[in-house]
């Protein structure tokens, strides 16, 4: 074949390859710069006992999950049964960050759908959310024994993500 024929064809092929790869990327999944960085510190009141506060420092020495949720968040409702199921297996403690929510609504929501959280922390004004780079609830972080963020999932969890990504990582981090 002549160069005049195959060069434009090759260029077209490269273009198609790029566009095809682009189609598969999810523009909503922004890579977090916080991966492999220490989880930002905070001290927030507990949802079930506002007189008590908790900070991530208290969880040093264990692998834990931080799930950002809110009663107004529709996708949270979809992932919630999975979290309840995961909490029953006891493989990893789940802490909730109740993001920009009303305490009454949040309590009623947990009452209705079940409470998978070891504790829920109230981030009423969303400041802690900003520190964690939250931009679309629900978001889930996996934090290791040293308090380093090891994984972040944006959007609702799926059975596949839990089975194939989160649980293997929890085992790895606990090893």
């Amino acid at each position, binding site marked *: 074949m002549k160069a005049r024929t195959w060069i434009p064809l090759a260029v077209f092929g490269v273009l198609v390859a790029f566009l095809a790869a682009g189609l598969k990327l999810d*523009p*909503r999944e*922004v*890579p*977090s*710069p*916080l991966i492999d960085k220490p989880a930002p510190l905070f001290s927030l009141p507990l949802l079930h006992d506002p007189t008590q506060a908790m900070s991530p420092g208290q969880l040093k020495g264990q692998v834990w999950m931080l799930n950002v949720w809110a009663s107004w968040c529709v996708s949270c409702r979809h992932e919630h049964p999975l979290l309840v199921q995961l909490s029953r297996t006891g493989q990893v403690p789940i802490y909730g960050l109740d993001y*920009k929510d009303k305490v009454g609504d949040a309590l009623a929501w947990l009452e209705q759908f079940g409470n998978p959280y070891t504790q829920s922390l109230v981030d009423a*004004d*969303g*400041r802690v959310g*900003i*520190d*964690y*780079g939250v*931009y*679309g609830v629900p978001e889930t972080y996996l934090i290791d024994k040293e308090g380093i963020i090891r994984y972040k999932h944006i959007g609702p969890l799926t059975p596949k993500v839990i089975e194939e990504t989160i649980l293997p990582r929890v085992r790895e981090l606990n090893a």
Partner: protein
Amino acid sequence: MKRFLATAPALLVLVASLGAAAAPAVAREAAPLADDPVIEKRLMALAEELRCLVCQNQSLADSHADLAADLRQEIREMMQQGRSDKEIVDYLVARYGDFVLYRPPFKATTALLWAGPALLVVVGGSMLTVALRRRRGALADDAPLSEEEQARVKRLLEEEADGEGPRA
């Protein structure tokens, strides 16, 4: 009385505007928009350069998303504390990554993004130049005619002279 009736609407307007002026004072969560015009101007200029993560094709300045409003407030407070634009941008990049910047920095991962268009122009331009040169070379052939060509020219001219050529 007539006089009073005529001025009544004006009075109403006056009272209404006074009420409007007093309203922000009782607003639940006053967005201190006009607190400090210098900071507001700086905030808007900076927010134009930053991407809203919720509605990704809008800047932080345009977006009505809750998060955008929160981030504008955060930036406003940092400006009031006297932090520089660079410090504020670094703060946001540490949390949301280069994605928040409409003008991401040049580094290994963004090299293709920055250099790509220029590269395409250079490659396309040189291809065009080569193609044009080749064509011009083919058209403007200044080499003297060969004997064979000379003979053909002569033959064609003679044919024309015989009246077989194109009509005048």
